[in-house]
């Protein structure tokens, strides 16, 4: 402990620029980085994109129709199921991008661009949430019923009115959207900038911004979840709620990305840049967050069930009655047991097709999670019209198709991997030995 502690400057190179450039040049000739694997040609997936855009437009249009056929609350709930599930996925991707930077992760370098693309859907998701928010405010509270209520009509609402008021909600929403847009676009932007400039210090800039970014992410995600999900019943509260939404978002993002990798691999992209070894580790993360979600979901439910305090327990009492109870059991099955038993084995994690197929189950589970949170809140008065589920299907499909369209567009707009990332070579050699 007695040695001198003069510190290396943060930008002091360990290898010279020439040497580093020589390395990059060598890397550029690597056959795995051929354009055929790392680029989507213009118009290559245009059929797919048109299809997604078409389905998106039809789905969202049907949602609007549903709003007139049934009521606005039903349609908005359907829309928010899709939007909040999609936002969760993009948030999860942003989280992983920042964690990869923070830990100087090597193995995930060839995967990271797709995480960045999904994270970059946050501005679009925020626009979609913004639409919902405008509808809420204009209609005087649809799902966030407190918006239209007189604070003096309810003791609890009066107590909370310092937080639950429209102005503050708009400010908070702007802050969340600002933080997430900045982080997701800048982290992706620097990464893409590095593709051409080869500036290794951009990696360090990403890491620096991921540091405060993770802190901002934790707080903003938690309060976003409070505002848009927990706030649907202003009486309800749970300190775990933010963590719960985070667990869902990590789970959802990994499932969506597994589909993306599977899709790209099947279309002949990525080649040996993303091999079974990388998918194996991606699959391990999926398994990990399956268990983590179950842990958080059980922890929250369990403590509320045990304590049985009216404000809290009402949330679950309602979701454990009638058809919602069945849905809850299905949720436990598809969100935990099915992925748990399928992902525990190493075989499905290493096969892109199997992993992709499995990921669809996980995406369905993730959407179902949002359904189970949001729909019973709408149904509180038993006003759910029979056979109205088509609105929900249309809305979710619509939102996800729009998301898919933009995701494909983002993927096509840059290389599929960070071409000159300092750790790219490490990822190329990544192997799970045990």
């Amino acid at each position, binding site marked *: 402990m007695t040695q001198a502690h003069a510190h290396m400057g943060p930008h002091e190179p360990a290898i010279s620029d020439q040497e580093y450039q020589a390395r990059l040049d060598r890397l550029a000739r690597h056959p795995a980085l051929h354009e055929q694997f790392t680029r989507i040609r213009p118009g290559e997936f245009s059929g797919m994109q048109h299809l997604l855009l078409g389905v998106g437009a039809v789905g969202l249009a049907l949602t609007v129709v549903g709003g007139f056929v049934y009521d606005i609350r039903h349609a908005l709930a359907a829309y928010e199921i899709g939007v909040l599930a999609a936002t969760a996925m993009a948030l999860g991707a942003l989280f992983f991008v920042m964690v990869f930077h923070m830990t100087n992760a090597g193995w995930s370098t060839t995967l990271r661009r797709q995480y960045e693309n999904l994270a970059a859907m946050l501005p679009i998701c925020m626009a979609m949430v913004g639409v919902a928010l405008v509808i809420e405010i204009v209609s005087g509270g649809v799902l966030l019923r407190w918006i239209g209520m007189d604070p003096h009509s309810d003791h609890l609402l009066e107590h909370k009115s310092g937080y639950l008021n429209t102005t503050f909600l708009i400010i908070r929403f702007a802050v969340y959207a600002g933080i997430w847009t900045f982080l997701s676009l800048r982290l992706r932007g620097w990464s893409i900038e590095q593709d051409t400039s080869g500036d290794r210090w951009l990696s360090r800039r990403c890491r620096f911004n991921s540091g405060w970014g993770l802190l901002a992410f934790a707080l903003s995600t938690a309060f976003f979840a409070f505002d848009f999900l927990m706030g649907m019943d202003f009486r309800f509260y749970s300190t775990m709620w933010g963590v719960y939404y985070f667990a869902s978002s990590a789970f959802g993002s990994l499932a969506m990305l597994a589909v993306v990798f599977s899709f790209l691999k099947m279309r002949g992209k990525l080649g040996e840049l993303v091999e079974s070894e990388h998918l194996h580790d991606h699959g391990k993360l999926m398994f990990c967050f399956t268990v983590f979600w179950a842990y958080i979901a059980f922890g929250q439910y*369990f403590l509320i*069930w045990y304590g*049985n305090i009216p404000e809290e327990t009402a949330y679950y009492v309602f979701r454990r009655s009638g058809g919602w109870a069945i849905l809850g059991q299905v949720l436990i099955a598809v969100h935990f047991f099915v992925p748990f038993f399928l992902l525990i084995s190493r075989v499905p994690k290493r096969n892109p097709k199997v992993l992709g197929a499995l990921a669809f189950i996980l995406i369905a589970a993730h959407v179902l999670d949002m359904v189970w949170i949001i729909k019973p809140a709408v149904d509180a008065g038993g006003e759910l019209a029979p056979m109205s589920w088509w609105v929900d299907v249309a809305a979710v499909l619509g939102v996800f198709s729009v998301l898919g369209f933009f995701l494909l567009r983002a993927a096509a707009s840059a290389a599929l991997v960070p071409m000159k990332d300092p750790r790219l070579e490490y990822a190329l050699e990544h192997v799970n*030995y045990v």
Partner: protein
Amino acid sequence: MEGVTDMSDAQMKPGTWARDIAMAIGTYVPGFARPPARFVSERGKPVHGIVGEFATPAAVYHAAEKVRDAGFRRWDVYSPFPIHGMEEAMGIRRTFLPFLVAAIGFSGAGLGLLFQYWVSANAYPLVVQGKPYGAWEPFVPIMFEMGVLPSAFAALFGMLMLNGLPRFHHPLLANERFLSVSDDTFFLCIEAEDAGFDADRIKDLLEEAGARSIELVEDDA
């Protein structure tokens, strides 16, 4: 190799189940002798095998690939730490240990759940906090622990069992030179129990693979 006498015609055929079982009983059960050795050294001792010594992981790794390709079955590489990729170089199949652990772990968790249910709902039903007797929620923590505990035992003791440990005496451990395996030396041993054991051929093979010394290991037991 000079001094190795082949006795195998007179003995149980190498590489058969019968010989393997007899060998295992002779090794692990007190009071039983192992089947007579196939090969005997100059001093009249049973031959355990021929050991080649290597200086680096790379050297022993490539030697292992050669020995694998030469078709040997009863042989092993000894290294101070697990060498990554050695399974492939040696052609070792994945162990079934994970399945053993999973079977035991899930059984443990299941039994834990049943036991708690039986106690709480049948043997001694007790109203606690107005919860239903058979509610599954409170059983989750102990169910989990009852899955983990047997799994951990299965992982450690299953591993040891499959490895044939504990085994306090082994011909290699009686060889002073071999003991440096725990520091920084790498060994490859082809055992006399291999059906294709041929001292001269093995010596040539190990020499060609770059062993820095080759030695006959006797079984002193």
